[in-house]
């Protein structure tokens, strides 16, 4: 496989005004992100709300400038295109290859345009089709996501949330892109339509070798669709692993926490008050020293508060994790038949497993 996109040392910070009196503050939304996307793979990005997933997507498509670092695109025909070095005009041809499906459909669909024109607009901008060909392309793309032809004259507000989300998907797919960044693209869809859209994305991938960066908080969907998963926490990549390995045995305590919080569709297995409320989510503008996760990590030790772990390969695995103890911790996965894990005696003895009892 060849690398399609490379993100190197990307950082992004925002400056926050401090209200009337306060001083300006810096919010680090992304800190030194490194990752690569292989052609034809589906790379999922997961992580807590506010950890920087959308920001990363927007930095990749250059909807906003990076503060530091480089994003390089390697088109299938060969060559290197450093997206972060291009101006708007130079970017335009590549905007056809790399498309983003935006998270909040209401704010990304122009409320004053009819749905037909919303989906036709990219074809017009890139001068790809007109007349009957344009019409056919628009209608057939909308049909693929389940929006019937007779509804294309409506404005966005006259659709349901899930229908709007699908209009956003059609708008991204209509240009036959090479790389699609899907930001929570199926989150508002019920299981049945979600299955149709996921099957559609899989078919396109098989047929046209599409590559996806799939931002989602739904781990069930991620397990189904992704080849590899990047787990982010507070603007950092904390784990990067093949999907099955992550779900089998995560190597970062935050990944374990995410898998543990997964709701199960069975009222008899209700989790009730989650044990995961322990610890504050630090505010991005006020990040702790040492490991960014230590304020919530049940395995944290003194070293974690002093020394920041770097993302590194975990010995003996194909996973990368940013945790000092990635090799020795026995973390719990999510597959339903997972044998119960016996916590290591050393940790249990050190009282390192609060909240574990009674589970």
């Amino acid at each position, binding site marked *: 496989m060849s690398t399609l996109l490379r993100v190197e040392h990307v950082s992004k910070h925002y400056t926050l005004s401090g209200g009337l009196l306060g001083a300006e*503050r810096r919010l680090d939304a992304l800190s030194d992100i490194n990752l690569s996307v292989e052609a034809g793979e589906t790379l999922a990005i997961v992580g807590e709300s506010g950890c920087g997933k959308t920001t990363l997507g927007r930095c990749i498509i250059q909807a906003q400038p990076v503060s530091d670092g480089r994003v390089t695109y390697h088109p299938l025909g060969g060559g290197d295109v450093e997206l972060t070095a291009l101006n708007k005009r130079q970017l335009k041809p590549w905007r056809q290859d790399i498309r983003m499906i935006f998270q909040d459909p209401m704010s990304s669909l122009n409320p004053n345009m009819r749905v037909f024109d919303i989906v036709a607009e990219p074809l017009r901008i890139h001068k790809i089709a007109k007349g009957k060909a344009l019409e056919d392309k628009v209608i057939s793309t909308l049909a693929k996501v389940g929006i019937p032809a007779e509804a294309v004259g409506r404005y966005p507000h006259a659709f349901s949330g899930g229908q709007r989300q*699908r209009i956003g998907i059609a708008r991204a797919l209509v240009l036959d892109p090479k790389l699609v960044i899907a930001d929570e693209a199926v989150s508002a869809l*019920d*299981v*049945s339509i*979600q299955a*149709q859209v996921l099957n559609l994305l899989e078919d396109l991938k098989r047929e046209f070798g599409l590559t996806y960066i799939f931002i989602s908080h739904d781990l069930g969907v991620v397990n*189904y669709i992704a080849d590899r998963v990047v787990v982010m926490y507070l603007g950092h990549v904390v784990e990067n692993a093949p999907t099955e390995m992550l779900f089998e045995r995560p190597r970062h305590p935050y990944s374990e926490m995410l898998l543990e919080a997964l709701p199960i569709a069975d009222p008899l297995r209700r989790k009730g008050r989650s044990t*995961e409320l322990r610890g504050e*989510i630090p505010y991005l503008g006020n990040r702790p020293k040492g490991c960014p996760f230590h304020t919530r990590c049940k395995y944290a030790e003194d070293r974690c508060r002093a020394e920041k772990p770097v993302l590194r390969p975990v010995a003996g695995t194909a996973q990368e994790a940013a945790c000092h103890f990635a090799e020795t911790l026995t973390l719990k996965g999510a597959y339903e038949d997972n044998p119960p894990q016996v916590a290591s005696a050393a940790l249990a003895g050190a009282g390192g497993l609060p909240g574990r009892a009674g589970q």
Partner: protein
Amino acid sequence: MTQPILRIEDLSISFSSPDEADIEAVRQVDLTLTPGKTLALVGESGCGKSVTARAVLRLLDANARIPHGRILFQPEGSEPTDIARLKPDSLALRAIRGNQIAMIFQEPMSSLSPVHTIGDQIDEMVLIHERVNRKQARARTVALLDQVGIPGAKERADAYPFELSGGLRQRAMIAMALACTPRLLIADEPTTALDVTTQAQILDLLRQLQADFGMAMLFITHDLGVVAEIADEVAVMYLGDVVEQGNVFDVFRAPQHPYTQALMNSIPKMARKADRVRLNPIKGTVPAPKDRPEGCAFTSRCPHAFGPCASERPARTVVGEGHHARCHLLTRQTEEALA
């Protein structure tokens, strides 16, 4: 038994449109909500969940009508009011909206003002509902933001909506809805934009508030995992009709309507790649409301459809204590048993 706070009976809602025939988005909805309990409303995208919810506050688009049905709101110790008969901008309705019934909307961006900070918007709500000065209102706002788990609540109150991530915006919306401690909270996909740990926190928070204030909740979601986690009761909608309502345990254990059964079967399993099967969505696609069969809306996709389904509307049949479903199979079986 506690008296219901909201009863929706035989409600229909249609939209007129300049270049299409009228769309009967909601055809037959019956729902009952009880104080202190959560009713989850589930169903396919576009089946009419949000429209039903907005009808309760009469916040429908201008091209909407309510051809028939009642929306009876009855807080403890008062007479029932039929919201369907009130004028959308009447005083009576404004007294209910935001004060007794609050709503969290599906897309936070569409209900937050982009030009005011979230703190100012929540302060406003607090000032309308409580006799406090600006400074006290802000203290309450910060407490609310903190309660819904916004880190750095005090500083974040000064943020504009666009400066917040999707999930933080959603939490700000929740804080705003809770500002008046409503008797009934309508939450339209409130955790859809949230990651699982935040989602678990919000569900805990809502449960807590419910225990503290005896609030009733209508919780719209398509995530059956969330339903299993939070609901006391479940109502299932398909193409404008409520086809089943019952206790969450009964509905998950023994769904009675073929659509509910299909829904339960299409939950993706946490399986390894080797054991993974292509997702098996319900066959066919949802017809447009105008192509909806006169009888059971599910006829065109139902594996059990037979004689009366396409033309006759199935009756609301009791299948257990507080458990109803609308399907001809249920009455056929009783008829056969009687014969």
